[in-house]
């Protein structure tokens, strides 16, 4: 069994990573700020501008540690790929499948079904936790959306073509984001959600979601590379230069579970305040330094939480789910499974 290893998030903008013996050392302005043995690290996400030494890059590549560089705002810049990533046979199968409109259906069906089902679970949990305190309007709207998503998920499980499934996915997003704002409690003035905006995020909820999706995207991409996939060739998402389409595919079913639910918790428990965000003159909203740190700590904690995997039936930390799903997808492509057992959260 693969262990869930910690991911190091380097958030100081002027940090520099280097290797010392079998350790990763984080330096800021020439002073050592942290030191971790390589064998305890599963990934490194570096938001710093100076970067990392070639020696630490080589050590990460050799040890299978995913090392990614993001801008301080969280936009993906680059990652280090070593000689051990990738498997040409799996990639060829992946490419053939991506071009085959019939054989791709069982995968896309799994992803869309699980996504709608997991969005529904987010609504159900909000109703369970806060239903009593909600206004009658909000409760009714959430109950109606929940029932609709149950129906959408069932139709997805029966769908026979990718085009239909893409339509169903759009419908699920419409229903879910249509009531997302109703799940937000507490400081309503600071946190209101008016539809999904990404480029740029136009409110604090969207800024938080985008940041969490960037973290999840990094984990999904690393998980896919870890089992030998090409993260750029997807099944639900069409190829687009520079886009990690397969990582986006894998994220779909996991977004409600790992990211959306955490966003709601952080807001509703008051763990994030209005001042944890920056608003720029053009209307773009992003996390401020302290807010970003609070989100990263919560993200790490959440990944350590155990749950029971629906297909394997064993308990595991949430952080391992992207890896297990990537593995199950590869077992489907290699012929062990006649479909992709997507992650359905209950």
């Amino acid at each position: 069994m693969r262990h869930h290893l910690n991911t190091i998030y380097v958030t100081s903008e002027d940090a520099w990573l280097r290797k010392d013996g079998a350790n990763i050392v984080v330096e800021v302005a020439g002073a050592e700020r942290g030191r971790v043995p390589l064998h305890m690290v599963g990934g490194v996400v570096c938001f710093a501008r100076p970067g990392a030494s070639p020696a630490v890059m080589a050590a990460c590549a050799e040890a299978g540690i995913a090392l990614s560089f993001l801008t301080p705002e969280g936009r993906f810049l680059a990652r280090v790929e070593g000689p051990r990533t990738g498997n040409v046979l799996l990639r060829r199968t992946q490419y053939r499948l991506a071009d085959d409109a019939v054989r791709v259906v069982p995968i896309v069906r799994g992803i869309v079904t699980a996504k709608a089902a997991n969005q529904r679970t987010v609504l159900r949990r909000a109703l369970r936790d806060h239903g009593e305190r909600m206004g009658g309007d909000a409760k009714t709207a959430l109950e109606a959306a929940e029932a609709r998503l149950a129906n959408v998920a069932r139709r997805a499980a029966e769908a026979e073509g990718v085009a239909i499934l893409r339509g169903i996915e759009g419908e699920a997003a419409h229903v879910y984001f249509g009531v997302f704002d109703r799940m937000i409690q507490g400081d309503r003035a600071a946190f209101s959600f008016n539809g999904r905006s990404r480029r740029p995020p136009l409110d604090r909820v969207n800024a938080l979601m985008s940041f969490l999706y960037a973290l999840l995207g990094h984990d999904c991409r690393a998980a896919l590379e870890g089992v030998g996939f090409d993260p750029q060739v997807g099944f639900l998402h069409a190829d687009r230069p520079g886009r990690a389409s397969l990582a986006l595919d894998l994220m779909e079913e996991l977004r409600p579970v790992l990211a959306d639910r955490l966003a709601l918790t952080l807001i509703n428990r008051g763990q994030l305040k209005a001042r944890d965000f920056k608003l720029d003159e053009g209307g773009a909203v992003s996390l401020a330094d302290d807010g970003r740190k609070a989100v990263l700590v919560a993200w790490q904690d959440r990944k350590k939480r155990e749950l029971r995997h629906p297909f394997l039936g064993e308990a595991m930390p949430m952080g391992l789910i992207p890896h297990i799903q990537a593995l199950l997808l590869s077992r489907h492509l290699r012929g062990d499974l006649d479909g992709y057992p997507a992650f359905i959260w209950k």
Partner: protein
Amino acid sequence: MKTPPPPDPAAEDALVPVSALQHYLFCPRQCALIHVERLWAEDGATAEGRLLHERVDGGKPDRRRGVRTVRGLLLRSYALGLAGKADAVEFHGTTPYPVEYKRGRPKAHRADELQLCAQAMCLEEMFAVPVPEGALFYGQTKKRHVVAIDDELRMLTRRIAAETRTMIAEARTPPPRFMPGCRHCSLAGQCRPKPLEKPPAIRRWLTAQLGD
């Protein structure tokens, strides 16, 4: 030493590692996961084995009581389609004598003997002399076991080498079978023999997950 001329590049390309034979004997699926799918996972046992071999291979040639020992000698046989590395080869006169180091103890199955036999047959082809004997050294018992490279062992080695090469050439991964040995397999986390041995029809499974 005489080295035959290199054959055509295709034959050289098709050589598979001697270690693949042992993987294949233990479990053909494990062999395919390692040599076809290129999955690898280190656990305590594989790390110990690797360190042991790094120590053994790292040694310099020495000569004791007239026997010259070469460590980490590169091996190959075009007849078997194998390439690899010998832990140690002693030269008794002009006759090579392979010695393979094992971490554990002697086992009920013949995997270790087969690996030694493959090495012996590589040495025969490379040096064009008969290699009638070799030895296995076990770390736990610290004892040396002499192995006769007889006809029966040679036939088994030829057969397993051919099966292994065919499987790797076809890039085929056999379906999982849950066995007692799976508990000791470092690849169990990637192989998942239990849930994948008789997996449900995924479409029905998916629909069933949607129930309350």
